[in-house]
């Protein structure tokens, strides 16, 4: 494989994510034996790819811990406990959830103005991505009550604090759930995992507050309506 082709076709980038044909991959790997320059580039690219994956996995695990995974497990009634063994499997699925979430967020952003939400089941988890958009109409989201938990991924319009407080309020104004001390991920989102029993059909409001030494200040609000997907 010759250099003009490697440069013109961005062979190194595509090699790193396994997007070359088997023939091109073989030819490029053989080229590495005679080209220190390409070898160095590909080594650093591979290292970066591994680093990004490490961070994505850690962020998900941290979100889970920060949100009091165990705390809400304890709150669940014994009737639901039988399903919790399978929920434990979720932990192994979490990196996949984050990957999926990134893709979904991108799709959300590429849509026209206004708030939008998407739900998608993964294993025992329903993932719900929402962007915080000012003056947006409430969106309708479908939550499968058979799913044990819902992962709310809240995209912040901007990140200007290290810690946030998220409050989920139902139509009567009573607080269903509150999470203090939530740390945004590197992708400017807050991740909240809730048992699906918290989101029975009805209208809800989520308020997000930025926390600082001066206290809490509003960082956004969004309204949505849950309908059963059954």
């Amino acid at each position, binding site marked *: 494989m010759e250099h003009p082709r490697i440069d013109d076709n961005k062979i190194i980038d595509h090699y790193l994510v396994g997007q070359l044909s088997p023939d091109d991959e073989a030819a490029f790997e053989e080229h590495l*034996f005679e080209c220190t320059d390409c070898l160095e580039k590909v080594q650093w690219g591979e290292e970066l790819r591994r680093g990004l994956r*490490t961070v994505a996995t850690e962020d998900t695990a941290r979100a889970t811990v920060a949100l009091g995974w165990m705390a809400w497990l304890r709150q669940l009634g014994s009737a639901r406990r039988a399903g919790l063994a399978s929920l434990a499997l979720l932990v192994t699925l979490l990196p996949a959830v984050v990957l999926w979430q990134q893709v979904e967020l991108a799709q959300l952003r590429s849509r026209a103005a206004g708030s939008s939400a998407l739900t998608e089941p993964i294993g025992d988890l329903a993932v719900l991505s929402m962007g915080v958009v000012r003056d947006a109409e409430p969106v309708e989201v479908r939550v499968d009550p058979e799913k044990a938990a819902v992962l709310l991924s809240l995209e912040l319009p901007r990140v200007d604090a290290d810690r946030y407080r998220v409050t989920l309020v139902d139509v009567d104004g009573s607080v269903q759930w509150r999470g203090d001390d939530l740390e945004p991920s590197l992708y400017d989102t807050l991740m909240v995992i809730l048992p699906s029993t918290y989101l029975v059909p009805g209208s809800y409001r989520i308020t997000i507050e930025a926390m600082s030494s001066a206290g809490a200040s509003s960082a956004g609000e969004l309204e949505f309506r849950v309908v059963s997907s059954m």
Partner: protein
Amino acid sequence: MTLDTAAAVDLVQRISDGDTSADAELVERCGKVLRFLARRCTRNEADAEDLYQETLIVALEKIRRHEVREPERLAGFLRALVKNLSVQRYRRRSYDVEKPSDALPDAPDERQPNALGHLLHRERSLLTRRLLTELKVSRDREVLSRFYIAEESSPRICQDLDIEPEHFYRVLHRARQRYRLLWEEHAEPG
């Protein structure tokens, strides 16, 4: 030192003739690439090191036994060898897992990363976070995560984010360079 065609032919000849200095030269010329390929084929640094060592041993044996029919294609031979050995190791491991547990009661679980693995893991995370923090434009972070983590195609990412391919590849290129610099600064503080 790299491996061009002339060097390959010369190396195969000398190793076959029993010239031990040629063994060392093989490692010098091909070691880095073989290590890299071994790491691509395995899940952790410890497994990669084992695969790398095995590849070198088998390669030298095969060359000495004149099993390399096209010496000028030594690179292709070595590349195929590391891949084949990796598949064999994977099959062996699948078999080992199915064996009754009393077969090797005290055998260490080699799937656990060693201390070096842990260290690399921590530093990798630290430096990647630093790199991501330095990226002021969140779209650039999204380029990295969608390409390297979600493994989406470049045209799709460019279309979604409304960016030119030129910009897309520049983000990848710069991130790689910056990451390397961060490692180098980390390795030699001050």
